[in-house]
Every structure is written in C-alpha cells, then in structure tokens.
C-alpha cells in the first residue's frame, strides 16, 4: 500500500519525460562502439543464430562465457545483466516446475539448462552490440547491409520528434486534467486513480492523432523540398552517407579473435 502511494507520488510526467530523454539522448560511448557497425552486425548475426543449432554443453557454455566478457567490455551496467539472467532463469525455471506437474522429472533439467544457455548467448549478444552502440551507428550499419534508407531516416526523425510529441502530449493530458474530474477516493491499492490515469492516457491520443496528422503533412512536404525522395532513389546519396564507415585493424582483430575462439570451442566440443 505504502509502496503504491510512493509510486504515485513520485510519478510525474516531468520526471518520466526527463528519464526517457536521459535514456534516449545520453547514450554512452562504450569501447566496443568504436568498432565498425557492419562488422558488429555480422558478428551479432552469427551469435544470434548459431546457438540454436548447437547442442554441446561445452560449446554453449564457452559461448556464454565469451558473451559475458564482451557484455562487460561494452560497459553495460552489471545490473542489466543481472536482471536479464534472473529473468531467463525465472522463465525457464517456471517451465521446469510446471513440467513436473505434467509428469516430468529431474532429467528435464539438463535440456532446459541448455535452453537457458542458448537464450543467454542470444540476449547477451544483442546487449553487447545494441546497448553500447549509438543508434545512428546502428542505422548506418543496417543501411550498409541493405535495410531501406527510410529506416535510418525514421530513426533520426524519431530522435527529432520525440521531445515535440512529448510536449504536445503533456499539454493535451494537462487539458484533460484541467477540465476533467479526478476520482474523489483513490480506491483500494489506488486502482481508481490508476484507472483514471490509464483512461486519460488513452483519451489523449484522440487530439494527439489529429495534431500529429496536421504536422506530418508539413513535414512530408518539407521533405520533398529538401530532396528526400530524390535522395532515396539516388545511390550516390547513400554512398556519401556511408563514406565515413571505415574497416580498421581493430575490427579485423575483433572478428578474427572471435572466429578463432569459436573454432577452438567447436574443436573441443
């Protein structure tokens, strides 16, 4: 009860906005993020797919260890790793517990442990690559790998428009509150208040949809005058955008090191 009340008191839209903006714009510059995004994406692809076809406990454990190391290298907070592991173990653990009711026994544990390892490798690989990397870099890497240019545009447009949308959303929500009626009693576990805010959250999208529609029209027209659609069809523009990507010694070292390590693992496994 106390917890819920605390949560409600602390929760203000200002705070949420601040936290979100901090997360979105304050992306750190980890050591791995200096690598070429194309190389990293290929690297990720390998570790995201390969584990599903490996059943050797040794190889999986080795891969997992490697991922833990790279994750730490990419300076992701240990907390994230901890939460992730807890989540995975919990999920698979529940599967195990339930399977006992369906006539399973302790022998189910080993296959499930392998599953956990696989899931961990995949998740840690994605954390390594994507949490530390600047989103602009991700989009450049994806663009280089053939993802449409509209995607990389949308990403940077997202960064541009988020504060504007947020401001507008806040004002609309405020309009509802200034002219609406809050429940007089918060209700058990603050459910009335929670329901009231959730309802407002949904209602607020009605005016927001109309306002955003109005905005997108100008935006798209302005894009036209700035050669956006021309650039989409122009291979020179794409080349120019990606001309800053350089494949350097450290990329080669990183990839070859990873390849050697995996080779050794398979050789033993």
């Amino acid at each position, binding site marked *: 009860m106390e917890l819920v009340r605390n949560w409600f008191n602390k929760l203000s839209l200002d705070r949420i906005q601040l936290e979100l903006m901090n997360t979105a714009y304050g992306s750190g510059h980890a050591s791995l993020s200096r690598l070429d995004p194309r190389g990293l994406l290929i690297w990720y692809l390998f570790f995201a797919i390969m584990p599903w076809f490996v059943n050797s406990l040794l190889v999986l454990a080795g891969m997992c260890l490697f991922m833990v190391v790279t994750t730490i290298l990419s300076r992701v907070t240990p907390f994230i790793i901890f939460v992730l592991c807890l989540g995975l173990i919990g999920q698979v653990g529940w*599967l195990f517990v339930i399977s006992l009711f*369906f006539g399973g026994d302790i022998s189910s544990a080993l296959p499930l442990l392998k599953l956990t390892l696989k899931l961990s490798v995949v998740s840690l690989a994605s954390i390594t690559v994507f949490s530390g990397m600047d989103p602009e870099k991700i989009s450049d890497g994806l663009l280089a790998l053939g993802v449409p240019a509209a995607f990389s545009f949308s990403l940077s447009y997202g960064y541009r428009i988020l504060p504007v949308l947020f401001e507008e959303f806040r004002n609309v929500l405020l309009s509802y509150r200034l002219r609406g009626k809050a429940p007089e009693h918060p209700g058990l576990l603050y459910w009335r208040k929670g329901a009231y805010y959730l309802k407002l959250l949904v209602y607020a999208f009605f005016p927001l949809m109309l306002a*955003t529609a109005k905005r*997108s029209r100008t935006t*798209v027209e302005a894009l036209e005058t700035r050669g956006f*659609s021309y650039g989409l069809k122009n291979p020179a523009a794409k080349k120019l955008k990606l001309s800053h990507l350089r494949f350097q010694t450290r990329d080669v070292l990183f990839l070859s090191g990873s390849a050697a390590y995996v080779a050794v693992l398979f050789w033993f496994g």
Partner: protein
Amino acid sequence: MSRKSLYTLTSSQKMMIFVLSMSLYGLSNMFTELIPSLQLGPIELSVEYFAFIPLTLCMLFHPFYAAVGAALGEVIFGELMLGQFGGLGELEKFLTFSFAMYVAGRIVRNPQNRTQVGIAVMTGVIIHQLCSSLVDIGKVWIGVEEFEAVPGLAESVVLVEGVSFLNDVLFSGILFALLPTLYLVPRLYGKIEPLLGIKPREKSTRYEAAGVVSPKLVLTGTLLALVAFGAESLSETDWNFGEWDSGFAEQLGDGAIWLSIGAAAVVAIIVLLAMRAKKARAAAQAGDTGGVPHA
C-alpha cells in the same frame, strides 16, 4: 500491396501515413514500457501495448503503410531509443505485428460499422498474439534437443504460452485495443483524412470477406500469409549485398577472416531457411494443442 486496392495514394501520402503511425505508436510504446506489470509466477499481467493506435490508423488509411509505420515506431521509440533493441527478435515482432495490424485493416470495409471494426480488432489482436505465442513455443522447441523426449515440457510450454495468450487477448486486447478503437474509428473517420489531404476510405472497397473465421483457418492462413508478407516486405526493401562489398574492396587482403565471415554468412542463410521450415512444422504441430485454451 495494391493488388485489389481501389485506394490509390501518392508516395507522399504514403509517407504521411507512415510518419503519423510511426510517431504516435512509438510514443505510446514508450509509455507502455513504463507502466508496471503484475508478475504472477510465470504469467505476467501487463498493459502489453496500445494496439488501438495502429488498428485505428489501419482502418482509416492504407493498412500497409500504417501497419509498417507502427511496427517501426515500436522498434525505434520503444527499443532503440530506450537502449533495449533486441536484434533478430525485433524482426520477428516487426513482422508479426505489422502483419496482424494489416489484416485487421483489410477486414474493415466500412469504418463506421462497429461490428466490423470490433471483429477486425479482435482478429488482429488474436493473430498477433497467436503468432508471438507460436514463435515462443517454436523457440523452446528448437532450443531443446529432443523436445518430445522431455516429459511434461510440451504441456508446460503450451500452458504458459496459452495463459499469457489469453491474458493478452482478454486484458490488453479488450481494454487497450477493442474499446478505444470502437471509440476512435467512427470519431476520426472523415475528420483526420482531410488533415493529410486524403479522401476518406470508401465503403465500396472490394476487400475479401472475413466475417466468420475458424481458428484453424486463421492459423494456416496466418503462417502462409506471414511468409508471403515477409517476402513482400523484403521486396520493398533494397536488400542488396553488392553495395556493401564496394566499401570493403580495399580491405580484402586478410583472407582468413573473410573466409570465416563468409562461412558464417552462408551458415546464417542456410540456418534461416532451415528455421523457417522447422518453424512451420512446429507451428502445425503446436497449433493443434495451442488452440485448446481458447477453444
């Protein structure tokens, strides 16, 4: 996507729909990421998503661009910007979600007909949740060697996924998809289109009838269509490995690495194909049991 569509749009209008859907659903996704969830053992009660936003837009505008825009909005705002992009996992979400929204948009012929809108909403939500559940089941099935040999595992996976499916459909689906969409679509119809300079969708669009659909039909149709949709989406991209070579031409000295990377790429492609085939099989099997909870 314009096989049967009577609905012709200029490329800038498509872009407007896309931008609109992306920013709105993206923003909502940031909120839903923040709303705390109630964890009851293996089952999570949470506000999964504000599906009413893409659903509404798919029903009012061209469903393809609204659906893809929304799915991309989720990836960008909800994942990349919050630093929780999950790589390939997002691709699966992207495809299932945009596909489900697209189908829902196609079902509606007359946005002012509430019954139609309601059916479309629930179909969309069910398709999406079913696909996600199947993919999750598939993951365990692929991930655990000799899946069938482990006693009780199949049942427990289906139970967990089934309950979370029910929760998402009944809780998020009704509260955050059905009711808001029923409220929004008739109110926005004829109002939001002129703001984009688009004519409201006509009642006479010849979209296929999908009034009474059996779960089995949806299931098989879904899987086939999902593959087709994926292929079609791919054809909209400029998936082209040729360009990527050019940047590397001068680097090709170190043969060993390239050999390994090349091998990895080949493996990756084979694996992708194999996975797809295996998944289809998995879905067909699991589907029979997966249908039980809501049957």
